[in-house]
């Protein structure tokens, strides 16, 4: 008897505790002295280092202790989360298109890309190949990827920002070949994706598939990801192959006006984004194998790892900017869908 009534009491206490906890949590979250940087997958190590430096820098300058929270995920998914209410103070995503979409919902102005130097991209990167040690399939350039028997690992451009850069680089290379036409370029990417056995949803998934599961002969990867894979999985297992030509990947950053005004963190957020352009940050950027805008402060050894190659920008008439590239290639019924529908 007693036991039963106690049970009832305990249960009621639980409910009460739950309600209190729920109430306490709802309006909580980051305080005024915190920033939320919503970023894409491969920048985890980069921003971990930059945030540490920024927090120290801010402390030295103002005496305030702040925290920078990080959220990582697929670039598109992250943009969507911000649109749906993830209250990012700054967004640092894989491609300008994702920021355009956020701007279109009025979270920051449409001309966001003009608010910071260099198209609001404090660093750039490119797409290279990661192959097995000794390059057994002798993969040198884009043309080798469509050979029979070569398996290419790349994520799904529909869900991964990096994968879109991969795809566009391949497209531009094909177009640039003597006698290249759009039809030939399409045939080329179609042949390339025919060699793709797995389409992971994100760049990191592809790297795991290639490096950990041992699937495929070549991984199309961000340059920094390729170096990271060497570090993580062993320099003795993989080689980086730099193709003759690639794309200039410009992962942009922006301040989310609507959220910083709400959080009253505009000053801090602006300082954070500006910090990315400082020599200190640029040095970190180079050390994480991204291409810094300002090479002056960077460690020459880091810079030596980043070879010069012919790069094409997204604003090149070949693509006509992100909005057009997205509509042409990646929208429902776009070229990417066509090459899969046609392959059947």
């Amino acid at each position, binding site marked *: *008897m007693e036991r*039963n*009534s106690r*049970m*009832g009491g305990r*249960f009621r206490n*639980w*409910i009460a*505790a*739950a309600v209190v*906890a*729920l109430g306490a*949590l*709802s*309006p*909580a*979250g*980051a305080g005024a002295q915190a920033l*939320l940087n*919503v970023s894409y*997958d491969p920048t*985890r*190590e980069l921003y971990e280092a930059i945030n540490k430096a920024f927090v120290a820098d801010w402390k030295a300058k103002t005496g305030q202790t702040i925290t920078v*929270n*990080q*959220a*990582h*995920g697929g670039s598109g998914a*992250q943009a969507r*989360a911000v*649109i*749906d*209410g*993830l*209250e990012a103070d700054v967004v640092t995503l894989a491609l300008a298109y994702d920021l355009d979409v956020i701007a279109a*919902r009025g979270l920051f102005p449409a001309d966001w890309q003009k608010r910071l130097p260099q198209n609001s991209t404090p660093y750039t990167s490119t797409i290279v190949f990661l192959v097995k040690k000794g390059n057994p399939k002798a993969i040198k350039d884009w043309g080798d990827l469509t050979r029979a028997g070569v398996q290419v690992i790349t994520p799904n451009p529909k869900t991964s920002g990096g994968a879109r850069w991969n795809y566009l680089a391949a497209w531009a290379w094909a177009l640039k070949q003597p006698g290249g036409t759009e039809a030939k370029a399409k045939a080329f990417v179609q042949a390339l994706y025919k060699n793709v056995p797995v389409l992971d949803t*994100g760049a*990191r*998934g592809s*790297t*795991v598939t290639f490096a*950990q599961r041992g699937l495929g002969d070549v991984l199309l990867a961000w340059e920094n990801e390729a170096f*990271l*894979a060497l570090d*993580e*999985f062993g320099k003795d297992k993989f080689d980086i192959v730099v193709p003759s030509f690639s794309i200039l990947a410009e992962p942009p950053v922006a301040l989310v006006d609507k959220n910083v005004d709400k959080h009253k963190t505009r000053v801090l957020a602006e300082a954070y984004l500006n910090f990315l352009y400082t020599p200190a940050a640029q040095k970190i950027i180079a050390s994480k194998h991204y291409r810094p805008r300002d090479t002056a402060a960077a460690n020459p050894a880091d810079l030596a790892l980043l070879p010069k190659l012919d790069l094409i920008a997204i604003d090149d008439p070949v693509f006509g900017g992100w909005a057009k590239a997205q509509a042409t290639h990646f929208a429902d019924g776009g070229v990417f869908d066509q090459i899969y529908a046609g392959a059947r």
Partner: protein
Amino acid sequence: MGQATPRLLRPPPPTTEPFAVKWALIGTAVLFMLLFLVMPLAAVLSEAFSRGIGTYWAAITDPYTLKSVRLTLLVAAISVPLNVAFGMTAAWAIAKFEFVGKSVLITLIDLPFSVSPVIAGLIYVLMFGAQGWIGPWLIDHDIRIVFAVPGLIVATTFVTFPFVAREMIPLMQDQGTDEEEAAILLGASGWQTFWRVTLPNAKWALLYGVLLCNARAMGEFGAVAVVSGHVRGVTTTMPLQIEMLYNEYKFAASFAVASLLALLAVVTLVVKATLEWRFGEELAAVHRAPGGKV
């Protein structure tokens, strides 16, 4: 079943299979279980300890991991009692009364079982997101649901919704209403009848439901991933932390955290087995698939 096996000294009893057939059946079942259940568990543990115990310990004492453990416990501590409250009331209404539309109601309770976690997450984003129906109002009043802890709780509650109700309903139906009627005739109020007669009789079903509900609440990934926003240390539950570590190529650490959840699963199962061993008879009636009243 084949009769081709050599006869032993005596023919087998008429209600069992011949020796060889019996062991062939056991062997097949055990092999299947090994292949599909034991090996994945072993894989998790072997990966978790692949870099040694030091790495393992470092991984599970990492501040972010500890935060994710705390968050996971918090989410479970709220969503499980909510579902218990629901499970008990729904079981009372469904098991003790006859009314029109019962099948539809039970089906609706089952529905979260088969709804894809992605859909589960999506519906809450559609509701509470900044572009959703009541999201803008919530944001104006500075109430955050999605991409904050309440969103994780709501999504988890959805995914674990049927467990308690589904365990309790069949048992309470089997038990009929005699004892409750007796209690009422003896002057007990409805509340007294429930706490003193119905609940003690259904306590094992309740406990089993809570165990499964809790295990699932702590392990939910898909739905939570959609509403989390992945803010490290703020909205990352253990499964999200596992994914995050995995995506950082910290496989050993990732599997170390996973092993904690696997351990939770094992503990759940051990508790369940112990209960069964001690209260076999009572629990036999309870021991049903969460989906199935048979």
